[in-house]
């Protein structure tokens, strides 16, 4: 079938500003948007630039705005989209070229929450023990692939450069709720400052956008509760009280 694709192009070496370009290509209903982009590169216009790697939703390289929503190009099928299919780069980051944006600020915010296990007690000879229940507490937030669909879809992020953003909060949650970590207090302090979890306006755009199905807002609200009450508890644990 013929598919019409409109892409927002920008080449800093020749364009003053972004402009739309339309392509008509032959594709199957089960094709991914990523497949369409490859067809365009291979057969129509080799100057089209985008990031991609694994092609099946794990690496997080190909996050972009497809028909107005943040999605992974490799997990979005043609048959689920209205035509013409519009494709634009993620919002809120400088566009380097076409669909490639500057991800440095995103990773800088990620690093701000100390996204690594901190436990200076001498480790045992074998594994530290962790019960399945303890493991379950932070399971959701271990799934993050740092694709930036959540952060670049967040209205607070769009207007407030200090806002750490949903992805950084997910990373923080993953460690705050991990029974083996010992730096919850320091992280919660960072998250309690301006630009942290209290700037979230609970818009739920992040939950809608996350290709891994992480309940981002729930994680943010659990972090807020931890800061306010001084006790780190999940929503399930809180409702059992």
């Amino acid at each position, binding site marked *: 079938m013929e598919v019409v694709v409109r892409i927002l192009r920008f*080449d800093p070496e020749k364009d003053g500003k972004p402009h739309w370009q339309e392509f008509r290509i032959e594709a199957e209903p089960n094709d991914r948007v990523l497949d369409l982009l490859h067809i365009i*590169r291979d057969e129509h216009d080799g100057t089209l630039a985008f990031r991609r790697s*694994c*092609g099946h*939703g794990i*690496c997080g390289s190909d996050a972009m705005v497809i028909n107005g929503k943040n999605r992974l190009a490799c997990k979005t099928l043609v048959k689920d989209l209205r035509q013409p299919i519009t494709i634009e780069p993620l919002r809120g980051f400088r566009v380097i070229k076409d669909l490639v944006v500057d991800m440095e600020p995103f990773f800088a915010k990620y690093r701000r929450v100390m996204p690594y296990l901190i436990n200076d007690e001498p480790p045992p000879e074998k*594994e*530290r023990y962790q019960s*399945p229940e303890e493991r379950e507490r932070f399971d959701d937030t271990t799934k993050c692939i740092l694709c930036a669909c959540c952060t670049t879809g967040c209205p607070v992020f769009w207007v407030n450069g200090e806002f750490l953003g949903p992805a950084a909060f997910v990373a923080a949650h993953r460690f705050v709720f991990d029974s083996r970590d010992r730096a919850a207090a320091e992280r919660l302090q960072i998250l309690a400052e301006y630009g942290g979890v209290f700037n979230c306006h609970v818009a739920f755009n992040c939950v809608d956008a996350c290709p891994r199905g992480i309940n981002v807002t729930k994680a943010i609200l659990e972090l807020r509760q931890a800061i306010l009450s001084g006790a780190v508890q999940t929503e399930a644990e809180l409702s059992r009280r």
Partner: protein
Amino acid sequence: MQTVRHRYDAVIVGAGGAGLMAALHLAQAGIPTAVLSKLYPTRSHTGTAQGGIGAALGNMEEDHWEWHAFDTIKGSDYLADQDAVEIMCREAIDCVYFLEHMGLPFDRTPEGKIMQRRFGGHTNNRTGEPVRRACHAADRTGHMILQTLYQQCIRYGVQFFNEFFLTDLLLTGDPLETGTRCCGVVALEMQTGILHIFHAKAVLFATGGFGRIFKVTSNAHTLTGDGCAVAWRRGIPLEDMEFYQFHPTGIYKLGVLLSEAARGEGAYLLNGLGERFMARYAPKLMELAPRDLVSRAMYLEIREGRGVNGKDYLHLDVRHLPKEVLEKKLPDITEFARIYLGVDPEREPVPVQPTAHYAMGGIPTNVDGQVVVDEKNTPLVGFYAAGECACVSVHGANRLGTNSLVDILVFGRRAALHMARFCRDADFAPLPENPEAQTMEHINRLLNNNDGRWRVGKIRRELQEVMMDKASVLRTGDELQECLDKVRDLKAQYAQVRLDDRHSAFNLDLIEALELGYLLDCAEALVASALNRTESRGAHYREDFPKRDDVHWLKHTLAYRKGDDIAFRYKPVAITKYPPQERKY
């Protein structure tokens, strides 16, 4: 073209599991290190590994690293170097604990220990039954490893150069001459088109495999054999390139992997008649037989007309597994089937076909990750390799599932420890004059080819098709020769490739063209090596030489580029405790 120079004691190319493991250890040792990666590190292919890390912790049942070693050696069809395998299986245990201490969120047993599951080829050596050896985190083990290692690298302040594309390896002379040292690399900064020269005492390649030479592959688009090809072009041999593993269960047509973990949890493989056909090929282990055996069985079933609906795929059936197992243990696999095939694995069997998955061969190294250049294992001072791009050899002619994650951790670490010792004692060797000359010439030729006739996409597609057709699971001498001729033909076409994009910023056209050159080199080395080896062993199966021939072929292939041709030398297999036997499951 602008150039920028850097100086670091150690330079690592590749930020997947092996690269990050090495970076972490070098950082902990206080060695000034730069990590170059053509992707942001968390995009690396290690992140897609699903099943688990094989390590004989013995948390669920009796297990020993010696059993793991034997399974690995038998799984390799007796081509693996047994001393290296013993080191790997022994150190695997400590590497798993190391990862857990770094925060890796393994699945847990009720007592709180790391959970382990069954996996193809891993057995209790006394009973021959499958043993629970694979330590896992749902079916996202690779994702967790990559995240954990990257997070720790952030903690230790590792210096990353992201979206830097490797274009050349710098040596002080001919790699086969004594006294030659590695002194750095050249890389293209993808965002700007600027060339960077990294002057180093020690260089580690951890650049991964080259599945993109095949049409149906589980590999990321970025797995184009960069490190292997760059080393090859500088006269360094590639070892055992003919051994390429096809994983039995890729999603039909897409090649996306459905982990062996499904079979580890009890999934069946069915042909068009609804039979569990593995009973005819591996009666004891059935679906948990090693991958080369299962993929071959699948090809034979399809060729004999027993594919589903007579077509070229078979079925992976998980309908009989408890719903909880699918949700908790195999969530990603379930999602892939639903999204890409519109198939609900709880109710229907999933169409699968063998998919190009893993390169057992690559840059030859010793057990400390030092690259060796001949059959005497002579190291090329200052040059190291680890992970899929290297060949130690621990996987021989066929790799067991879960052993790649072990390989990258154990040898990533060992290479780093050796590099650290080396960097402390050695001085910098001088860079050659105009180190960027070769790269600049190559890039300028690609950018300025106005009379070019062919697009990158066309040449790449033809390469992938001929390799899949004539050099994959079932091979014959005649077809391999036709394939080699075609690959060489495509190389000639490549010399006339035409790019659309002539600009500097993020020129994906240029990057793909450079990658295509690497793919062609790796493909040529693979096919020539396959043609040369007149026996069948592990994943290399020749219908014209169907038997394993230990008398003539119990040895490693070393392929060298000699002008337009390829020359072969051979390296003996290190045998410690396990004399080669017939391989039956």
